[in-house]
């Protein structure tokens, strides 16, 4: 299967506190390593889920792929073409095949334009249709995402959150993309509406063969929609695997803790929760070695000195941990806790 998107060793660092006053005072700017070397591929028509907690860098990965940020290093190949350094002008044709849907559908639609105009814009921009044909295309898109054709002349404020997200999806679909980056697309929606949007995304993928990079913090949603899943922690992918393998036999202690922390709507769910201590460290000053070691219940001396690489553990299952393994996490107090 050929890949719609290949990301190689992608990094995005932000420089904070680099102001003239700071320089005069001889302060060194601090570097936020939001994304620090991630690699993955997404096959045509496939969904890769990218999960992690706030600040882990998952949205920055999406934005760097879209070139809303210029990556610090690494490659982003769309249909075999590296778009990580191309000029804005040279990027234009690639962008037709690369679209995005954001979390907040209200702030991503122009309040002064009708929603039909917002959806028509990318189509006209790429010269895919004009005049009556353009309008017909927009109306068709509206119907395809579950809206009525007569709603194209309305303004964003006239729609509910779920409907606005459908409009955002229609706009992303308009240029017949190969890949859509979905950045928390259902997080702002109520459960009953969330299900509608998820089902719609699944249907559209089957119909048009679009690949999705589905960025979210909700593990149940990611499990539902993805074929493969990557788990991020402090700017790195700590585990990436086929959905079934990842959710049924996670091998990284962070993935295990994350999965165990999700409250389940089942009064009889066996609760063997691993409660991680402390908060996520700052990405300006991540722990040495394995970045998870400061919260890891099984960390040992080697974790502080050597960064574990992503290694293949089982077919299609890669984990970055010196002590990765299936089975329950032994929160051994006896484990050598040096470096915590």
């Amino acid at each position, binding site marked *: 299967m050929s890949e719609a998107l290949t990301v190689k060793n992608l990094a995005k660092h932000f420089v904070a506190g680099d102001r003239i006053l700071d320089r005069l005072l001889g302060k060194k700017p601090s570097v936020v390593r939001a994304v620090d070397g991630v690699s993955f591929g997404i096959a045509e028509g496939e969904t890769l889920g990218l999960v992690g*907690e*706030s600040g882990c860098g998952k949205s920055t990965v999406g934005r760097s792929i879209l070139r809303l940020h210029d990556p610090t290093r690494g490659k982003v190949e769309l249909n075999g073409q590296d778009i990580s350094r191309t000029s804005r002008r040279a990027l234009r044709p690639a962008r037709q095949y690369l679209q995005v849907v954001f979390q907040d559908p209200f702030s991503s639609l122009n309040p002064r334009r009708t929603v039909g105009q917002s959806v028509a814009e990318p189509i006209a921009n790429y010269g895919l249709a004009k005049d009556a044909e353009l309008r017909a295309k927009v109306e068709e898109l509206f119907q395809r995402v579950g809206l009525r054709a007569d709603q194209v002349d309305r303004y964003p404020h006239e729609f*509910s959150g*779920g*409907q606005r997200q459908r409009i955002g999806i229609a706009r992303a679909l308009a240029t017949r993309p190969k890949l859509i980056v979905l950045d928390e697309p259902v997080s702002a929606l*109520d*459960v*009953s*509406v*969330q*299900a*509608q949007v*998820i*089902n719609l995304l*699944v249907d559209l993928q089957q119909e048009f063969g679009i690949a999705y990079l589905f960025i979210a*913090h909700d*593990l*149940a*949603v990611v*499990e*539902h*929609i993805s074929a493969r899943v990557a788990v991020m922690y402090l700017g790195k992918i700590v585990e990436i695997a086929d*959905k*079934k393998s990842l*959710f*049924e036999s996670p091998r990284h202690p962070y993935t295990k*803790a*994350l*999965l*165990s*922390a*999700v*409250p*389940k*709507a*089942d*009064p009889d*769910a066996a*609760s063997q*929760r691993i*409660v*991680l201590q*402390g*908060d*996520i460290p700052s990405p300006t000053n991540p722990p040495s070695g394995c970045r998870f070691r400061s919260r890891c219940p099984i960390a040992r001396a080697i974790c502080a000195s050597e960064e574990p690489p992503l290694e293949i553990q089982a077919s299609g299952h890669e984990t970055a941990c010196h002590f990765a393994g299936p089975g329950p996490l032994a929160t051994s107090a006896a484990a050598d806790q040096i470096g915590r």
Partner: protein
Amino acid sequence: MSTKQALLSVENLAVTFRTDRGVVPAVREFSYTLDAGETLAIVGESGSGKSVGALAVMRLINDPPGRISEGTIRFGNRSLLSLPEDEMQDIRGNEIAMIFQEPMTSLNPVLTVAEQIIEAVQLHQNLNKREARARALEMLQLVQISEPARRLNQYPHELSGGMCQRVMIAMAMACTPSILIADEPTTALDVTIQAQILDLMRDLKGRLGTAILLITHDLGVVAEMADRVVVIYAGRKIEEAPVRDLLRSPRHPYTLGLLGAMPRLGAVGEGQRLTEIPGTVPSLLEPITGCAFAPRCSMAIERCHGEAPPLERHGDAQHFAACWRSGEVGGDR
């Protein structure tokens, strides 16, 4: 419902809000009770009235635009809606405390953690500054915050979201209230931090015997925390049951729909579709005739559109549902 004397009992509450486009009945005919030491969850989607139903207990509805137009709220043997403001002030934060969804914005950014807890303590307890500070430290230790002594002198912006929520809980519990109202206490937090806070709330409830009124949209959180559950839709209670009954054999199509619409962790159903609830929540600006859920309900019959179903008991359990066809709903999950 209210057989023996409950700690808190809300009866027939109605709250309206005046808006530019008309009067919105945020909650109607809303009743619930909370016993000492129990956790009651009020579950609903945005705009369902779940927060309003709890804020009314604290008399924190701004008038105008809001107004408690009907109902009684009894706390022990006091009727909260007819108390003078100064007596209500004594109850608020002292006997009934509250924590909110956004711990970052609920704390005062220009006061240190110590100053905020001391203020809360001194308002209700006759302690001098030194004693109050000792109490603040004790509370921070109780909520298991890391390095409690150092936190006392820090400002909210120096703390993470999880730590801010611990400070909020420390402040709320400082006067050992008999009721803690928690309005979406973990919604803004990451899942591993949420797990810490839920554990903490359970632990404190066990140790201090505080009753918790938990407002949430997350049925997962409900399953972990609640003893009983009230489901609210478009301002009305549509189902009430012990947590196991509600999740295992819901009696209202809306509750059943919510459970089906939620993707479940571990249900790796390849290509399986989520059950959609079609349409959206009705606008409360328009008068609702019949059952508010009827336009979205796959089981609706003619009667549902014309006549609002009353809340009725099912079997001999404490399970109530407001649906003409509730006997046919669901079955065991």
